[in-house]
């Protein structure tokens, strides 16, 4: 059973260890146009969504990993929920329908309400 008094104060997390976003955060998927390898589909760029879960542990940026050396900057991926009506203005299905996708931290910005 976890007790708050057991938490050790003092260790400083390294860059990328602390997630920048929390479940429930409203986020925008950035508009960016990489030349070469990317893993954020064009249909999602600029769309608004909500962070559903933080994928643990932090992992390598797959856009860098694709260029070899089995390396890249490590940060968190987030499972983000986006309404299909947000993605497709003419979406014909239910307004409840949603898309969920893993997005690397460097592709997200927080939306302040």
């Amino acid at each position: 059973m976890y007790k708050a008094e057991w938490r050790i104060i003092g260790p400083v997390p390294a860059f990328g260890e602390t997630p920048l976003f929390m479940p429930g955060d409203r986020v925008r998927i950035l508009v960016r146009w990489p030349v070469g390898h990317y893993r954020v589909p064009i249909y999602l760029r600029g769309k608004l969504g909500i962070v559903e879960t933080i994928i643990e542990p932090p992992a390598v940026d797959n856009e860098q990993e694709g260029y070899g050396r089995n390396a890249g900057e490590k940060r968190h991926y987030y499972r983000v929920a986006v309404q299909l009506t947000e993605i497709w203005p003419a979406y014909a299905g239910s307004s409840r329908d949603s898309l969920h996708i893993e997005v690397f931290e460097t592709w997200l910005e927080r939306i302040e309400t």
Partner: protein
Amino acid sequence: MTATEHLVKRLPNDVGGTPADPIQIADHPLEPWEKRCHALADVLDFHKIINTEEKRRGVESLGTELVNKLSYYERWIAAFANILFQKAILSPSDLARKMQEVEARWPTREK
């Protein structure tokens, strides 16, 4: 906006939301070479010679025409060849010579 930007900006595999045909609900059992090709991908990944993301990027780098015209495992093996050359693990002439040697194991076609 130049006339060709869109070709660079959208990778050939980025098809989400693009116009497409009805789904053909078909499947085919893998050819033996396709299964060996899949096993090769896994073994290359285990040995960190070519990781899965490199394979994806290698397939994308084949370009739109090859991505659209080659089958799934044909794209993989062509991508592997290119990546192995880039990593100086094989050279193009190594592979060309070996491919000729493999082909020579079958009698030449009589025409």
